[in-house]
Structures are given as C-alpha cells and as structure tokens.
C-alpha cells in the first residue's frame, strides 16, 4: 500500500484516485487515520510520480489537517498500516491538533557573493584566503537567517533552516490567515536590500513540521 498522509481519526475519506489509479482509502485507529492506496504491480518513484504525489497531497490539505508521509513509503498490508497507526496515534493526534489551521511556507533568499579582494595583479589565492572567504560567506548566511527569522517572528509558530547549496532556505509554520502578511513583509525586505532575490513558496502541508521539535529535543 502506498501511504499518503496521517489525518485525524474522524476525517472523511477523500473521493479521489491515487497515483496508480486506485481509489484512495482511509484506515483508522481510535485517534488517527492514514490515507493509503492499494498498490498492485510495479510502482516507480519517478519525478512525475513525485510531482503527482505532491499535487495530490496539497489538494488533500483542504479535507483535514494532515501529516504528509515521506514519498515514497509503502507497507505490505492493511494490518501493517494499522500497526503503525496504533503505535504512533497518540503522538500523531497531538501533533495534528497543534497543526490545525497552519501551513508551511519556504523562504528562499539568495544574494550575489562579493568578488574576492585582490591586493595586486600578482595575488595568488591561498588556503588561508579561501578559508577566510568561506568564513565570511557563512557569517553573511547566518546574519541573513537571523534577519529573516526576526522579520517573520510575529507570524511564525515554528521555524526550521533547510539545507541549501546556495543562499538560504527557511521553512516556516504559519497560520493560514497570516500568510499574506508574511509574504508582504518578506518581499518588502527584498526591496530594501541590494540585489538580493527572495521567493516565498507555499503554502503547503507541513512537510517539515510533522514532528514536534520540542518533543524531539526533550
């Protein structure tokens, strides 16, 4: 069975077909339920399937608060799904209650890196100069993370810095009603800076916030 999302135990079953053409089903325990699809034959996690999964999960968000399940996760039988539900239902139920009315947005910010300073034409980069430039880049990155975090603090319930090869990516858990204000504030921050490029993506189901970070850290 292909797993889609954990939803509240009393959520209605979605009237939708899944990725392999079967009707989506809902398997319930007392406190939580899981949206699944019977999956017979070969299933490949192609880019197209990943995208279709993402679109389907985003469309299901209107049905109930949800904890999306990492794609592609499959379990062999309904009883295996039920066993997972029963083992985790208390924590999942608690988290679903916390996430009611909240969505994830991802702020992606990038800026041009300054050219390395050259003392004269004969300057040859050394290991030390490379390390110094890397340290400066990391300091700029940390400062931008702190600046954006402070900027959105008013609207954000939880925040998580995501891995990024260029610039920064920050996932924010935000009340649905607050998303327009947050986007406006972030775009204002972009216009106030020199050549920085900022994009706010989402809102999406809370992919980055399925686990209570405080509970994990405790």
């Amino acid at each position, binding site marked *: 069975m292909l797993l889609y999302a954990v939803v509240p135990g009393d959520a209605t079953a979605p009237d939708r077909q899944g990725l392999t053409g079967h009707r989506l089903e809902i398997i319930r325990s007392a406190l939580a339920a899981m949206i699944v699809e019977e999956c017979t034959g070969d299933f490949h996690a192609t880019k197209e399937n990943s995208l279709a999964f993402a679109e389907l999960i985003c469309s299901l968000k209107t049905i109930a608060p949800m904890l999306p399940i990492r794609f592609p996760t499959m379990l062999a039988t309904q009883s295996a799904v039920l066993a997972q539900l029963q083992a985790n239902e208390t924590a999942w139920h608690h988290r679903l209650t916390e996430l009611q009315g909240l969505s994830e947005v*991802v702020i992606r910010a990038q800026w041009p890196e300054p050219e390395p300073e050259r003392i004269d034409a004969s300057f040859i980069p050394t290991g030390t100069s490379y390390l110094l430039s890397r340290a400066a880049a990391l300091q700029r990155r940390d400062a931008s993370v702190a600046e954006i975090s402070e900027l959105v603090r008013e609207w954000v319930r939880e925040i998580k810095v995501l891995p990024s090869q260029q610039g920064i990516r920050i996932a924010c858990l935000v009340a649905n009603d607050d998303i327009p204000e947050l986007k406006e504030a972030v775009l204002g921050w972009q216009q106030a800076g020199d050549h920085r490029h900022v994009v706010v993506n989402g809102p999406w189901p809370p992919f980055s916030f399925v686990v209570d970070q405080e509970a994990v850290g405790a």
Partner: protein
Amino acid sequence: MSDDMERWSNEDVALVDLLDRVIGGGVVITGEVVIGIAGVDLVYLGLQLVLAPAHEVEQHVALGRRSA
C-alpha cells in the same frame, strides 16, 4: 545575481522546493524486525523504511551490480 536564479523562474524554484519537501520531509515510518529460528530470537533489525527516493536506491543497486 547568480546565473541559477536568473535562469530559473519562480515557478521552477517553487517546484524544486516542493519536491524537496515531499522527498525530504514528511513522516518517516519506522519499524523493527526480530529474526529468530525455532522460537529463539537471533537478530534484531531497527528499520527506517524510507531512507532515500526509490529511483536513487535503484541507481545505487545498479551501480553496485556493475562494480561487483
């Protein structure tokens, strides 16, 4: 501005971020298996059922076969 950000539209960037979250975020199902013979527990396996996208796993398996 970097070439990457100029070349990619905001829609492309949103798509990349969404796919990244679909594959890199979400609930990870964990489990455990005890393998035993004749009622004697011999091996315990802690499982994280999804560690990587399946197509990447397939590529790793194929590479492993080629190098074997």
